[in-house]
Structures are given as structure tokens and as C-alpha cells.
């Protein structure tokens, strides 16, 4: 197996609030890693740091063996290779679905308009959104919008896909269509780091689950072990609360 993402001793604070207190994590190519943990445990911040959307305070992040947190790194070039999908979709409301998807391929990858449009339509078709290509995002359901956001990230052919609680803003009946897309991507071997509250989904799709608590990875391992016999007391309590809330 080859390494995709390597995170070493990563620390991040917002003013006086330490959010990440030394994270070490290695993600292999084609691996799906799920980050679980309570809100505020640092899952989202970790993903945003990997995509260089937040400057880090200490530590190192490497992609394919290259340190992306080194001085003089071209951030735009790094982000080109990393896809991220946000909880609140963040589609561009003034552009059609097709324009949303094709923007970066045209402006960043310098593909011709026709080529980018053609590829974008293919991708939309693959995820059942072909008939929405010329709609504006606010005409779409939340589930459809989130699928468009995934397609938009995929249009850049990322080496790694980061998913930041992508179903948390969705009505329950719309969650499944989005998770199905992720399952399909996992089956095709996409490298993914997924922050999620959907435990059943994490158990199902992840190769490895990491439990984050207070800015640290307290426990990690294959989903079956983490979910059925967690060794850490805090992990156990977190999972008990989830089960009590009927989320698993």
C-alpha cells in the first residue's frame, strides 16, 4: 500500500482555544477513513487544515510524501489535488449546476469550455443529475445540491476527497441518496477522509474509524472493533450516547 495523506503532530488553535492538540494520522491510497466524535472535537478543523483552508500552528501534513505545510508551497496547486465537500454544500448560487461543476476545470485546469462542459455532463449523468445541469442550485433539493457539490469536487479529479459532515444539513429522507454516492466512490477506490455522525454508514463504508475527542485521536481501528468493543472509556461513552439517541 502507498501512502496518500500523512499528518504528524498537527496542532491548531483559534485564538486561545486549542482545537487540535497533536493529531497523527496516515491515510493509505484507496483507503476510507471515518472521523467520528462529538461536535467540537476537531473533525471539521482537521479536514480544513488538510485542504489548507486553515493555517496550522505546528506539525506537518504531507500528500504523496510531499510536505504541503512547508514554506513556499503553492496552496492553489495543493487544493487542486484535494477535493472537499462541505456540510452546507456551498454551491455558487449565481451559476447553473453545469457552471458550478465546470468552473474550476476551465479556470484552474485550463480545459476548453467544450471539453469541461462535456466532462461535467458525463459526471452529472453518472450521479443521476443529468436533467439538473441547467438548473440553478436553489431549484434543487438539499440532497441534489450536495450531490452536485460532490460532482463539483470530483470534476477536478482529486487524489483525496474530504467530506465534512455532508449529510448533517439534510432532511433525513435525503441522507440515503448522498451516502449512496459515497459508497459508490468508495467501491471505486477513491481515497476519502470522512467526518460524519452517521455511525451505521461509517461502520459500513470505512476501512478505519478514528474517534476524536478534545482535539486528539483517542482510538482508531477497523469499524467492527471500534463499534463493538471500544477499548477507550470515552469512546465507549460516546457510542453509548449515540445508541441511546437512536442514531445507530
Amino acid at each position, binding site marked *: 500500500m502507498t501512502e496518500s495523506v500523512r499528518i504528524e503532530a498537527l496542532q491548531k488553535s483559534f485564538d486561545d482555544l486549542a482545537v487540535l492538540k497533536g493529531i497523527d494520522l496516515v491515510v493509505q491510497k484507496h483507503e476510507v477513513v471515518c472521523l467520528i466524535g462529538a461536535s467540537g472535537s476537531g473533525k471539521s478543523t482537521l479536514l*480544513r487544515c488538510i*485542504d489548507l*483552508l486553515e493555517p496550522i500552528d505546528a506539525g506537518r501534513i504531507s500528500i504523496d510524501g510531499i510536505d504541503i505545510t512547508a514554506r513556499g508551497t503553492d*496552496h*492553489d*496547486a495543493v*487544493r*487542486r489535488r*484535494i*477535493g*472537499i465537500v*462541505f456540510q*452546507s454544500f*456551498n*454551491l*455558487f*448560487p*449565481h451559476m447553473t449546476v453545469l457552471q458550478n461543476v465546470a*468552473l*474550476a476545470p476551465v*479556470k*484552474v*485546469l485550463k480545459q476548453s469550455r467544450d471539453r469541461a462542459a462535456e466532462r461535467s455532463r458525463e459526471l452529472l449523468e453518472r450521479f443521476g443529475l443529468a436533467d439538473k445541469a441547467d438548473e*440553478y*442550485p*436553489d*431549484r434543487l433539493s438539499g440532497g441534489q445540491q450536495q450531490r452536485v457539490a460532490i460532482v*463539483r*469536487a470530483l470534476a*477536478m479529479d482529486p487524489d483525496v476527497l474530504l467530506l465534512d459532515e455532508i449529510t448533517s444539513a439534510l432532511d433525513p429522507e435525503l441522507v440515503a441518496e448522498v451516502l449512496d454516492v459515497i459508497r459508490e466512490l468508495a467501491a471505486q477506490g477513491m481515497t476519502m477522509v470522512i467526518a460524519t455522525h452517521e455511525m451505521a454508514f461509517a461502520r459500513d463504508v470505512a476501512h478505519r474509524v478514528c474517534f476524536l475527542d478534545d482535539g486528539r485521536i483517542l482510538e482508531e481501528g477497523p469499524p467492527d472493533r471500534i463499534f463493538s468493543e471500544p477499548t477507550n472509556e470515552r469512546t465507549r461513552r460516546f457510542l453509548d450516547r449515540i445508541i441511546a439517541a437512536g442514531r445507530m
Partner: protein
Amino acid sequence: MAEPSPEVSFPKGGPGDPRVPPGGGSRRPRILGGDASQRNVWIAVASTVIFFGFLTIVIVRSPGWPEVKQSFFNGQEFKESFPLILRKFVRNIQIFCVAEVMVLAFALFLAVLRSLPGPVFTPLRILSGAYTDLFRGIPTILVIFLLGYGMPALNLQGIPDSDFFWAIFALVLVYSAYVAEVYRAGIQSIHGSQTAAARSLGLSRWQSMRYVILPQAVRRVIPPLLNDFIGLQKDSALVAFLGVTEGFQQATIIQQSDFNFTPFVALALVYIVFTIPQARLVDRMIARDQRRRQAGATL
């Protein structure tokens, strides 16, 4: 002198969508009460007619009225001066049309400068901020005098001495400061998550601004922008002090020869006919915007 609104703020949140879902009826405030029943309409009409009829009688029968009428609402004077003033008002139209186009571009430039992120751009941000502070603080008439009389008096080579040129130049300087603030409010009203989404796709700072932030921001600020343009159109009368023969100058000339103020009333009428449709347009756009936001909130 009409000063345009210096700061315009926009409620944050909402997807700021450019498309309006169907439905959502008119929310324009109604002049005739809320209840549209036949009887109420009649009461409204009757009370309005009686009220304004009474007001008219009071005014017309008041002791000074004949003098007022003679001096301000003189029919003969109006008929003679109106075409002359209207012809010179074309000059005003030229001035504010040219100025508006230049303000649109220059103000956008200022706003973008001021919105550049990162410590490297601090001097540019300071420069742009100082500019807007300066020109929002100085009365327009002062800028017009300073440039219009001061610059040609320098007798420097290459500096134009056309009062028309300096009139436009001064208006552009002043109004760009206001409009830059309007643009900036628009840029700031676009949620940071839009920038994050753009940057995460590998777009550069400038590309994010150009393709994602600005198109949304400009769409949002069109109503307050038009508002400032109405102010600019009215301030085009100040140019008369430089000796540019435009509407106000023409009205002054007639007034001074005839000792009658009707030409000013005629000019006022021209301005009103010009600005009221624009004001209504702004109202409609704001109402549409509000509907859109409300529709967005229910999504």
C-alpha cells in the same frame, strides 16, 4: 446638497440566490388601507378628495398666494423658460452619464483593493480606505471648486482646462468614494463559505473574487448603487458654479433677467421627472430582494 447614504449594510445569511421561486405576491405598501373592500375604497377616495380639496382652497385663498403664484408658478414665464432649460439639461445628462460609467469602474477598483486579503496588501487597503474617508468627508462643492478653478490655474502643460472635464472629474472622485463603500458592503455580505468553496477548488484569490464573489456582490448592491446615482444626478447642478452652461446655469440666467423664480421650478420639475422613475425602480428592486430573501429563508 443631497448626500448619498454613506453605508449600506445587508442582512447576512440566506443563499443570496438570484432566482426567485414562483409565488410570493406583491408586498408593496398599499396607500389605500389594508382592506380592499368596495366600501373602504370609496371612503378612501372621498376623504382624499375632501382633504386635498380643502388644502388647495386654504393655500389659494391665503393672503400671499397671488404673489407666490406670480413669482414661482408663472405660466408665461414657465412656457418661455422650460424649453431653454430642457435643452441645457442635456449637458447635465452628458455629465452624469459619463460620470456614472467612470464611477462604476473606479469604485469597483477601490472596493476590490480594500477587500484584498492578506498582510502583503495592507498598504493598498490603507490607501483605498484613506481615499474613501477623505472624499466622503469633503463637501462635493469644495472638490468641484478646488479642481475646476485650481487645476486650470496651474497652467501646467498637459492638464486640460475644460470646465466640463473637471466637473466630471470632481464628481467621479467624490461619488466613487460612496459607491466603493456600497460595493464593499456587497462583497462583505457574501458569506466566507463561498470563498472557501472557491479556493478549495484551486481557484486563486483573484479568480475567487472575479468569478464567485463579485458577481454575487454586484447583484446585491444594485439598489443602493442606483440610490447613489440619483444623488450624483442631482449634484450635477453644482457644476454650474464652474460656469458650465447646464440646466441650473440656464435657469439662473433667466431668473436674473426676468426677476422671476419660475425657471427654477421648471428645472426642479425636470429633475423630478428624471429621478422619480429611478426611485420607484429602486423601491421595486428592494421589494423583490426582500421577497427573494424571505423565499430563501423558507427553503
